């Protein structure tokens, strides 16, 4: 039996022995869908095109057991946006920590809570949960669905919530266990949401976080989704986002991934309404034996939708970076404008990048472009900086930082832009 199927079996066994505290028929049925889909397909292996470059054999050492609830002290959490009065939600091993969180905006179209509370108290979230993503599309979504219990639930209608919501996901790395945060983010009817997510891990043990997020933006709404993945050295973070963007709405994603042994960050967006727009920006950095994988798919399903994608990576040591970006234009989706750019810097001779841009176009009147480069630092630029007195290591750091920062030129909020720049600088000086 292959390692992947063994892990699959463990995960399924674990799931079937679980007792869910909050039982509702629709929720039971959703979880059953997840487990059925996962039983059928199991963990993806490298024969699946989307998983060609990321072998989940790297899960070796993960037990398949669920992560325990663990207490975390306030002083173990540093906030990125602490100077602002913002909503803050903390999850430890996938469980909401009320005592560490602070939800200040409620009512008037704003509904921010832990998913477990939504599941316990009403059927409201049944309108969305499992309706945006299909378990058949993505085996990791199916696995997450089998374990739906807690996560972040944000629904904003007819209200521009400009102050960012800060969400921290902590993995404590207890006994090689797994957790499955499930998030749902909805902006409807002239709504705006800004979310800053951060994924961190403690300790040196292996763990797996398999997060899944469903996002719906509709009717003149906008979501700015900022995410920073800084998992612990042996952390495995497999994250899937499924977003649907409808009429005159916009989903902007900014992802920075620097940590963990394995980080797979998959984003799947459908532009499914008139003038829908998706913008995906990302930076991945890795060194030593790290493996970082950013796989995206943007579907243009109706006429006159637009997308821009800009990912940059810097790989050092023996690290491996994967970028797979695909733009799909459906039959009849005329007037589509889709642009994708991916640039990579190799900082050592052992580092590796696999970049695979893809266009799949079934409409006639479209503008689509993709560009992809992989190279080393520019000697001329390096000499220019050194000729100004800047030492070689500093000159290299400045060039790498500048190269990566370019991916985030679309961040309009200065405090958040500063955070991203600072995180990139932190990676440089380690």
């Amino acid at each position, binding site marked *: 039996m292959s390692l992947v199927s063994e892990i699959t079996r463990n995960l399924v066994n674990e799931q079937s022995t679980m007792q869910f505290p909050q039982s509702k028929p629709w929720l039971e049925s959703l979880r059953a869908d997840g487990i059925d889909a996962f039983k059928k397909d199991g963990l993806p292996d490298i024969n699946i095109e989307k998983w060609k470059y990321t072998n989940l054999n790297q899960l070796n050492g993960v037990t398949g057991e669920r992560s325990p609830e663990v207490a975390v002290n306030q002083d173990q959490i540093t906030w990125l946006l602490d100077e602002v009065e913002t909503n803050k939600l903390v999850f430890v091993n996938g469980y909401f920590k009320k005592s560490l969180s602070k939800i200040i905006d409620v009512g008037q179209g704003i509904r921010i809570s832990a998913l477990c509370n939504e599941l316990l108290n009403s059927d409201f979230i049944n309108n969305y949960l499992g309706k945006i993503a299909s378990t058949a599309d993505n085996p990791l979504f199916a696995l997450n669905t089998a374990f739906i219990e807690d996560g972040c639930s944000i629904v904003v209608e007819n209200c521009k919530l400009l102050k960012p919501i800060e969400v921290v996901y902590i993995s404590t790395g207890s006994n090689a266990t797994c957790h499955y945060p499930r998030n749902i983010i909805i902006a409807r009817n002239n709504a705006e949401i800004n979310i800053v997510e951060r994924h961190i891990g403690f300790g040196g043990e292996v763990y797996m976080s398999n997060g899944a997020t469903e996002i719906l933006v509709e009717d003149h709404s906008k979501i700015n989704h900022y995410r920073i993945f800084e998992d612990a050295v042996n952390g495995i973070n497999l994250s899937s986002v499924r977003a649907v963007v409808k009429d005159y709405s916009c989903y902007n994603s900014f992802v920075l991934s620097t940590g963990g042994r394995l980080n797979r960050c998959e984003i799947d967006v459908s532009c499914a309404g008139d003038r829908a727009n998706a913008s995906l920006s990302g930076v991945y950095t890795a060194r030593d034996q790290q493996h970082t994988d950013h796989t995206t798919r943007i579907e243009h399903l109706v006429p006159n939708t637009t997308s821009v994608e800009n990912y940059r990576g810097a790989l050092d040591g023996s690290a491996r970076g994967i970028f797979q970006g695909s733009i799909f234009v459906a039959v009849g989706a005329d007037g589509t404008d889709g642009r994708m750019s991916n640039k990579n810097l190799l900082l050592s001779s052992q580092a590796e990048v696999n970049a695979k841009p893809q266009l799949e176009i079934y409409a006639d009147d479209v503008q689509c472009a993709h560009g992809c480069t992989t190279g080393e630092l520019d*000697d001329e630029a390096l000499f*220019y*900086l*050194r*000729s*100004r007195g800047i*030492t*070689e290591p500093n000159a290299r750091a400045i060039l790498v*930082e*500048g190269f990566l920062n370019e991916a985030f030129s679309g961040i309009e909020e200065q405090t958040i832009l500063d955070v991203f720049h600072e995180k990139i600088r932190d990676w440089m000086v380690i």
Partner: protein
Amino acid sequence: MLEINNLHVNVGETQILKGLNLKINSGEVHAIMGPNGAGKSTLSYVLSGRAGYEVTEGTISYQGKNLLDMEPEKRAGEGIFLAFQYPVEIPGVSTMNFLKAAVNSVRKYRGDKEFDAMEFLKFVREQTKILNISDDMLKRAVNVGFSGGEKKRAEVLQMAVLDPILAVLDETDSGLDVDALRIVGEGVTALRSSKRSMLVITHYQRLLDYIIPDVVHVLSSGKIVDTGDKNLALELEKNGYEIYSEAVA
């Protein structure tokens, strides 16, 4: 201050400089003129320590030290500055941050206290006024989208803030219109001092209307073939370099 003796330099298999001799005293402005391919830019790169220029023979002594032993950043710390003919674009790095990194690196090397953000801003603004450089230009990425004139003004700004002992200006007039040439020429002239030497490499005489040289050299086929005062530049402008190529041939 600077003494170059019998300098031979190869780029790849090709010999570019073939026994160049040059001596510059403190505070002097020397111009080097010459036809295309004479080795003018090679000389500027050898002085600033660019890789790929192999010195096969000869010496360069700078303030009594062996310049050829030094890394580019050390040369900058020791006071050598090269204004590039083609300043390099660096996307993603703001001009302000670049200048601050450069100035603080050099200050650190020279044993001066590094500037904090406020001190640096004040310091740099004194220089930008003279060179007609806007705050907006400082926010933009280094040389990215700069016009020819902006690039050269930015080079002179770097020279001003790095306060070199020997400034090498490699065809600083190339790509400049009349107004930009005047601003750059005046900017450089303002930086003349008895403690600062300059080596102005140029193809045309026009920059020397603004930066009046003490000594003019003609570089042809890898050697200095003539030396004179500022009038030599005027003669060259009139007669061209042909007589030198014949002499060498």
